[in-house]
């Protein structure tokens, strides 16, 4: 690849439980903070796990969002809007002379759940004499209790389009759903869109689901949720061997992509580029996670598209979601791909601090990875709480205890879905 054709990252927006800007997130991460706490958005006392990394209430007025638009928006929508605006401005796209048709947009987004209060009045108006749902009554009167534009709030692409309208984006686009691989797919498609000259700039990334009774129920039904700790502020520990399960987080990450040539011409700053990507599928037989072979396939493909060998990777930002089979299989895959270098390979997971952002995780990890490359620091993953993994003998060592100073040139970011998809993205310094 000619250097002028490198796809560089010219801007970033990251919003999570740790902060509303990239800097806030980075500082909180370096300070060893975790956003994971007892769920405060609703009474989660009935669930076996009541922990999540929530962003708290976001007032749309402070974002300048018209109440009419806010009526069909929810937390995930505000997060995508905030991260996208930040990336757009951070990249100077508000000042760049790109036509709206030349700006693309790709996002990974989660499932969208109704608010119980959106539908409950309709159900209450549709009860038959025995207390069951009387469908003719629902169609006649009951459904009128539902806000007429409520259906739009259920489509995740409506949020995406609201951001498109807000920023005036009219180019190539897609929404992928619902897990981390979807967020990675968005970045891959964005990277290729730039490389193939289908757009001059692209926003790409993703957003988590809202932490709600329904999304927490979905996580529990999937069999990957943490169930051993009910409340409190204790963090969970990816690769700890305790295999407690994953904890949901709220957040969004968006990056701006552009050809290096184009960024140079308009004087846009960048330090990193997208070097490679890989996508694979294969559900593990033992449980809800991609198999080790699948995770390894995605990693190898990413190395191949980047024309790199394992020796060129300085850090892995693992999916490391703390789930039983997810962690085990990822550790096996890292060992298989990196061979003898495995023990020397630092591994970081942001999920102990940010929670599992699902479709928002890949871009969030890329943004944190860029900070690590720029500052030469790998933050400690879980200060003082790391316990030796049962598979630590063959697995890479997570960065624990103290932050490490290290010159980083290339970082591999891993992403997985408990449906069986795996993806890897490599970012690197621009040379």
């Amino acid at each position, binding site marked *: 690849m000619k250097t002028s054709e490198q796809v560089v990252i010219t801007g970033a927006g990251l919003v999570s439980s740790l902060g509303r800007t990239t800097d806030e997130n980075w500082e909180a991460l370096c300070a060893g903070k975790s956003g994971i706490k007892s769920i405060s958005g609703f009474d989660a006392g009935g669930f076996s796990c009541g922990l999540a990394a929530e962003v708290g209430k976001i007032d749309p007025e402070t974002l300048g969002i018209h109440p009419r638009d806010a009526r069909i928006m929810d937390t995930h929508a505000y997060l995508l809007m905030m991260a996208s605006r930040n990336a757009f401005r951070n990249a100077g796209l508000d000042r760049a002379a790109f036509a709206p048709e030349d700006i693309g947009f790709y996002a990974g987004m989660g499932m969208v759940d109704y608010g119980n209060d959106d539908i409950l009045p309709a159900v209450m108006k549709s009860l038959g004499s025995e207390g069951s749902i009387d*469908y003719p009554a*629902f169609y006649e009167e009951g459904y009128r209790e539902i806000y007429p534009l409520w259906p739009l709030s259920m489509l995740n692409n409506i949020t995406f389009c609201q951001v498109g309208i807000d920023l005036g984006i009219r180019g190539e686009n897609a929404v992928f759903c619902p897990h981390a691989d979807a967020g990675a797919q968005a970045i891959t498609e964005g990277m290729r869109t730039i490389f193939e000259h289908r757009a001059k700039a692209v926003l790409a990334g993703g957003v988590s689901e809202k932490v709600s009774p329904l999304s927490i129920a979905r996580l529990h039904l999937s069999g990957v949720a943490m169930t051993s700790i009910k409340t409190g502020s204790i963090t969970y520990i990816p690769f700890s061997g305790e295999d407690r399960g994953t904890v949901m987080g709220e957040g969004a990450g968006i990056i701006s992509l552009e050809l290096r040539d184009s960024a140079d011409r308009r004087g846009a700053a960048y330090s990193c580029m997208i070097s490679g990507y890989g996508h694979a599928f294969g559900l593990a037989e033992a449980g809800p996670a991609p198999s080790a072979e699948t995770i390894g396939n995605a990693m190898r493909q990413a190395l191949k598209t980047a024309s790199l060998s394992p020796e060129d990777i300085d850090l892995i930002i693992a999916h490391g979601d703390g789930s039983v089979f997810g962690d085990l299989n990822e550790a096996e895959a890292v060992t298989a791909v990196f061979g003898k270098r495995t023990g020397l390979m630092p591994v970081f997971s942001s999920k102990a601090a940010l929670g599992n952002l699902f479709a928002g995780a890949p871009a969030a990890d890329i943004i944190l990875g860029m900070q690590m490359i720029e500052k030469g620091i790998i933050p400690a993953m879980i200060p003082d709480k790391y316990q030796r993994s049962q598979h630590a003998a063959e697995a890479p060592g997570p960065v624990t205890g103290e932050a490490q100073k290290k010159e980083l040139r290339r970082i591999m970011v891993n992403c997985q879905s408990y449906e069986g998809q795996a993806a890897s993205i490599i970012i690197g310094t621009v040379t």
Partner: protein
Amino acid sequence: MRRVVVTGLGVATSLGLSVEENWESLLSGVSGIRLLDFPEAEGSAVKAAGALRDNDWQRIRAAFPEDAAQEGERRTLFSLWAAGAALKDAGVSCSEGGRDRYGVSFAAGLGVNCLEDIHRWKGNDGKFDIVRFGQEYRQVHPASLMRNNASRAAALIAKRSGFQGMNCTVTTACASGTQAIGAGFRAVQRGDADLMIAGGADSMLNPVGLIFFVLLGAASISADDPLTACRPFDRKRSGLVMGEGAGFAVLEEEGHALRRGAKIYAEVSGYASSMDAYQVTAPHPRGIGAEQAMRSALKDAGMEPEDIDYINAHGTSTKLNDAGETMAIKNVFRAHADNLAISSSKSMIGHLLAASGGPEFVYTVLSVHHDAIHPTINLTHPDPKCDLDYVAGGRREKTVRAALSNSFGFGGQNASIIVKKYLLGRGTAAAERRTEEL
């Protein structure tokens, strides 16, 4: 860039479970729109839809007994049927493993919102009992979106087929199907995969689905005869009529297809997407996003407007879409717009929503392959705003060198894909120039 050909097709729609049956019905102007007869539909303002025939549904269930017992959503089984049929048609057996360059690109709708899940946990005080729900969530409805991820069908198709490559699910409302096929096309074109099964499945024929477009004012509920209410481009059109089902195509790198002696239906030559950036509640009245998608797809294919003979329109039978799409076609194709044959499959199968681009792509490929165009039915009252050739009078035999299929989604996302006759070893000069550029 590598050339991408279509080697397999599969559908499950209200017109039946085979491509042949679908195609013959479409050419004959037979409608799959029928009165809804499931118990929960009683009293619904939406009286008819392109629902699968019950015996077809039972056939699908019998073909996948384990999945029928486990999976709660109709769309998942539709997917297994249609994707399986497309792979069989392409001669790709589902037993071999280790296919890391074969992938799945799937289009999904929003899933099922179950009133029963609200009803079950309503408290005596008229509020939702969240704590009790937290203790009993395992009792949510089998079809609930709490049990069914959007990517479920994509995962099941890959698992069943041993496809270990890229596996993605697109959710861009009614543009999803064409966008998923576009994503699959590009994955093969750029070399990330050698073969992709691409398409979509959807069903909103459930209580919340039935009021979904009524609330938005987009559903046809005022027509005298619900069976002919889907009348794209007709002056008396009053909104969309839902359908359900799935449509998939096998997209394959040319050399890969030739080496294994696959039958080639057509070549995919261009794809593009766009956004209106206008309003989430209505398409742009002048169809600027639609125009841009078609224009960019032509450019991507290295084709001129005059190279297109047929458009499988989005044609939803809503006031805004059909007028806006017509205007966009005129703006892109100029004088050639009058030479185009345009038809809407939705007039016979209804609007398959997120999946619509799936079967419509299949039909577009068939038009190119057979040099035949299905009509737009129920178009009996010409609309001055829709004054192009919508093939209203019945099937048309016509050489179709290349055809374009449109899908436009709620929110303002648009996608257009172009299919042309496959000629061994011959790309267009412009396409080759574009390849050299890249």
